[in-house]
Structures are given as structure tokens and as C-alpha cells.
């Protein structure tokens, strides 16, 4: 198998607590550095993964600390894909409107910015429901040629 086709896979399984966010970020950072992204892009990927996991902790598990979050990263020379899976309450990200910062200000609204950030930071974002009542979001960033 040539290097060009070599796929590297890494997995991290954590409980649904916010104190694991630092661990999730360092796991993501290490993999993104290995794949050869520029620092700025690595920063974007880390933030997108943090936002996705924060949403799972808050919304899928409603801050219950015993939920499971599985983060799998697969990458080759062209594509860096992060799959994040939970077993909590399903939520439809399409039901969250794109935030308008001025409306947010008027309504003193503080949440909902995460989903919008993820879309802005990544090249592809796909939410799906898996068998066994699992929710999955796949975040993709393409490597520059």
C-alpha cells in the first residue's frame, strides 16, 4: 500500500462531562498536527470538535455525566474526518436557525452559536441517526493539495 492511500485511525471514548473537553481538544490537536494542517486550520478543527461535544453534553445528555461520547478520527493525505457518536437524546440541527447576532443581542439569547460555528469552520458537516439509538455527526476538513 502506498503512503498516499494510507489511512490513519484514532479513537477516544470519554464520559459526557465538560472537564473532558480539554482532553478532547488535545486528542484532536495531536491527530490534526500529524495530518499536516497549518496551525490556523488545526485551531478551526479543534474548536469545531469542542463545539460538537459541548452540544452533546448539554443537549443530548442534558449535563448527565454518565453518557458516552466516542470520537473517531480517520485521515489520509486528502481528507481529515472526525466522527462523534453519542447515545443521548436525538436532536435535529436543522431546527436551529442561523443566528443573527443583533437579534441574539435583543433577545439576550446566549446559546445556539455552536452549530453555526461548526458549519463555518468545517468543509462538511453531516448529522445522522445510527442503529441502537445512536446519534452521529461527521466533521470533514480537506487537506490542501
Amino acid at each position: 500500500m502506498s503512503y498516499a492511500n494510507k489511512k490513519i485511525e484514532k479513537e477516544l471514548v470519554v464520559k459526557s462531562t465538560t472537564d473532558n473537553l480539554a482532553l478532547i481538544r488535545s486528542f484532536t490537536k495531536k491527530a490534526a498536527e500529524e495530518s499536516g494542517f497549518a496551525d490556523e486550520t488545526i485551531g478551526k478543527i479543534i474548536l469545531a470538535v469542542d463545539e460538537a461535544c459541548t452540544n452533546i453534553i448539554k443537549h443530548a445528555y442534558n449535563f448527565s455525566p454518565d453518557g458516552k461520547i466516542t470520537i473517531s478520527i480517520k485521515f489520509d493525505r486528502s481528507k481529515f474526518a472526525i466522527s462523534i457518536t453519542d447515545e443521548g437524546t436525538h436532536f435535529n440541527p436543522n431546527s436551529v436557525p442561523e443566528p443573527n447576532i443583533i437579534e441574539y443581542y435583543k433577545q439576550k439569547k446566549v446559546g445556539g452559536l455552536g452549530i453555526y460555528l461548526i458549519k463555518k469552520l468545517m468543509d462538511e458537516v453531516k448529522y445522522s441517526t445510527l442503529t441502537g439509538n445512536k446519534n452521529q455527526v461527521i466533521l470533514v476538513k480537506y487537506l490542501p493539495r
Partner: protein
Amino acid sequence: MADFNVNLRDVGNVSIIDVKGYLDAHTAPELEHVFNKLLDDKQFKVVVNFNDLKYISSAGLGVFMAYVETMRENKGDIKFSNMKESVYNIFDLLGFPILYEFYKEELEAIQKFNLQGQA
């Protein structure tokens, strides 16, 4: 993991919040705690100095959204200073520059409050 630190100090009648490290959903409550203290003390003129902040997620941005209007209703504001480009870019992505004042140096933000106070 204590990767975030927040410190409160006064310069004249302006409160300065120094934030350091990583501001995420885990550490944002510490910042909320400081804002609640400011409201208790009726301190509404606030500068947040980002000089030592390495990272911010939307949970951190949400804290500023939650408190800014109360500050403004009481003739104060939340102004930002000394922000790294990587941190500013996140604020920019969400359109914050429409609603907040950003300054290169803390002193400029303090002076803006003092000028407004004289008007």
C-alpha cells in the same frame, strides 16, 4: 484541570477582567461568577483583557452576550482589549464586531469609558 484563570481589578471606576488560558463550556461558569459579582457591586463599566487567553469557544462568547445589555442599561459596557488574532477571528466569525468595541490596548478602552463619562 485548571486551565483557565480569571482575575478582577479596578482602574479608577473601570473594572478590568483578566482572562487567561482556555475559556470553554467547563470554565465559562468561572467568568459568569465574576460578572455576577460585578452586578452585585453595581460595577457596570468593564474591560475584558484577553492578553493571556489562548482559546475561546461559543460557551465563552455566550457569557459576554448574557451580560452586555445589563451593563449598557446601567450606562456601562463590556469592551474588549489585547486580543490575539486567532481569538478575534472567532468573535468576527459570529459578527461580534457589530455589537462590541475591540481595542488593541487596555488603556484605550479605559479612556473611552472616561471620555463617555464626561460627555
